[in-house]
């Protein structure tokens, strides 16, 4: 499948995964891949505290206003409070929104009708989709175990709220989530035991409870396998006619052994994921840096593009 076709399968792509799996990095890589394929992309960030701008080498803090992070890639935040204010302002209730927020009554309402904030965020995403705000709208979903709650909020709210505009909003959000031509979920995980278990669990819950279409699962942070690591450095030195300094052979051997061990462990987890979850996998390499900037995102976007090309069309 070519990357442009992949990005055009549905206008909304919700990127979800537990904390620490690289969800934001993957959102950035998807956006870059879309841009490289000639499409426009809008990344929507819902927590107001992510390294998204930094991933594009920008020191800006994202706000409610769209900003261009790189050619073809725009980003904005959409916190629940923002979504509430906009929702009410659109309906001529500006003062009400102010008072709800300033009095703290919004917390009471949100507790009485859990999921109401999520609905407002997803409702706004639906509006962006309807307005064709970009060829691809990437929603960097909330982290932690919240993804399932976030996406099941619409169904839950229909039980709590029987009439009114919020109910109408929830119904429309459910339609969006249930339509694979409009919306899909891209799950992200790491090739480690607990993240694999969790992504399998999340995938089943999302399919059962939300009926949302799952895109291939992204396995992030795979150590690229390197050939030639199973030789003894001392033999290799003799054959290369190089003299090793004291201690070097040990360091080379330990590092090679570590890499081989990690590659094998990760391979086991990738196999286990394939057995537990009937979804295609997109593999992204571990980058030997601890930070993600524009250069790293480009590397990942290219790797993602390669992986997508490997999918059946």
């Amino acid at each position, binding site marked *: 499948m070519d990357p442009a076709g992949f990005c055009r399968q549905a206008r909304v792509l919700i990127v979800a995964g537990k904390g620490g799996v690289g969800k934001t990095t993957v959102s950035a890589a998807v956006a870059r891949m879309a841009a490289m394929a000639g499409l426009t992309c809008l990344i929507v960030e819902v927590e107001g505290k992510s390294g998204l701008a930094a991933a594009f080498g920008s020191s800006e803090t994202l706000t409610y206003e769209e900003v261009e992070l790189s050619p073809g890639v725009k980003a904005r935040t959409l916190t629940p409070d923002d979504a509430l204010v906009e929702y009410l302002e659109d309906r001529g209730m500006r003062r009400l929104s102010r008072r709800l927020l300033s009095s703290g009554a919004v917390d009471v309402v949100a507790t009485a*009708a859990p999921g109401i904030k999520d609905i407002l965020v997803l409702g706004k995403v639906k509006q962006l989709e309807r307005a064709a705000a970009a060829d691809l709208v990437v929603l960097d979903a909330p982290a932690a175990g919240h993804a399932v709650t976030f996406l099941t909020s619409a169904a839950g709210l229909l039980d709590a709220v029987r009439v009114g505009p919020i109910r109408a909003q929830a119904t429309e959000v459910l339609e969006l989530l249930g339509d694979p031509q409009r919306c899909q979920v891209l799950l992200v995980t790491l090739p480690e035991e607990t993240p694999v278990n969790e992504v399998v669990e999340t995938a089943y819950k999302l399919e059962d409870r939300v009926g949302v279409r799952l895109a291939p699962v992204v396995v992030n942070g795979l150590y690229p396998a390197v050939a030639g690591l199973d030789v003894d450095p001392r033999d*290799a030195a003799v054959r290369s006619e190089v003299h090793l300094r004291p201690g070097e052979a040990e360091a080379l051997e330990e590092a090679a052994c570590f890499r081989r061990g990690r590659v094998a462990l990760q391979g086991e987890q990738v196999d286990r994921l394939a057995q537990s979850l009937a979804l295609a996998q997109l593999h992204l390499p571990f980058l030997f840096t601890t930070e993600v900037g524009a250069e790293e995102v480009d590397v990942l976007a290219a790797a993602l593009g390669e992986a997508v090309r490997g999918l059946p069309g």
Partner: protein
Amino acid sequence: MTSLAALAQERRIIVCCGPGGVGKTSLAAATAVEGARRGRRACVVTIDPARRLADALGLGELTNTPGRIGGDWPGELWALMLDTGSTFDALVRRYAPNPEQAEAILGNRLYRNIAGALSGTQEYMATEKLYELHEEGRFDLIVVDTPPTRNALDFLDAPRRLARFLDNRVFRLVVMPTRAYLKAVSVATQAFLRTVSKVVGSEVISDAVAFFQAFEGMEEGFRDRAREVDGLLHSSSAAFVLVTTARRDAVEEGLFFAGRLRDYGFEVEALVANRLHPRFGAGSGSGSGSGSAGADRERARALAGTPLGPLFANLADFRQVAEREEAHFAALAEQVAPAPVVRVPFLAGDVHDLEGLAELNRSLFPPAD
């Protein structure tokens, strides 16, 4: 200087906090193991541990009562998986003036949602449980693992947030329009709530009003309790341990978190750097052990095409990541100085049995030289 071992030996309470996905739960459990190894009666309070770790700790389901874990140590090890809902229920029963009022609250739909929907409630109940266990006096050491929330700071904001929720003026004015001058306010407030009802549906508002009616008069008890919990966390019995990995985003979150802890009057007393890449050759005792990634990369280039090329390229990869980890980490270590820094390397696999926990314990508390 205090070490993490000294904290496990001397303190009554250790709070493990830090960003999500850094391994807090396992480290909290390994810290409780240390307490047991030192002959103390230790209990780890966890929230939503990974399934296999939960099984290893005998935490098949939420029980809210500590279960004992057998092991080869002179002390005792107990574990408890927090049940937010029933912890809150117990608090309501404690502060309700009579059982009828308690039942009215427990049956209210808004109340039933609080545990799952009001951000920070889980954290608040974790501290509440901690306080309760502390008061019971059964344990010498209680280690709490803070939950993987959207925002790690919810842990600190939780009591205030709940108090603010329970004190909500809008709803309280509706339920107690007793004095004449409040009546006018109440009329305006009711108009406000009617408008809100039109948007969110009237059941939502009537549930909320019923909740505040039932809760009337109990906020004081809750507030006092929150103050006591806060006092305990600020006392010298308690220590905060900040856990993070060396990834840049985790370190940045850690820096922010350390700053906010200070704002709240807490000191980070130990910093744990989890899942560090190993430093190869560091133990060989020769000068080359401290070789740089750059030099290794050079040699890999020079030796490309020979059997040594890939070996040097691989070593350079790992030295590069170790160097960057160390550089990120230095800023955080400086911010929490003089707190000791404990470096925990990558383990071969996930911790999901007592053996894994024992291995993690050895990394976290290396035997003194």
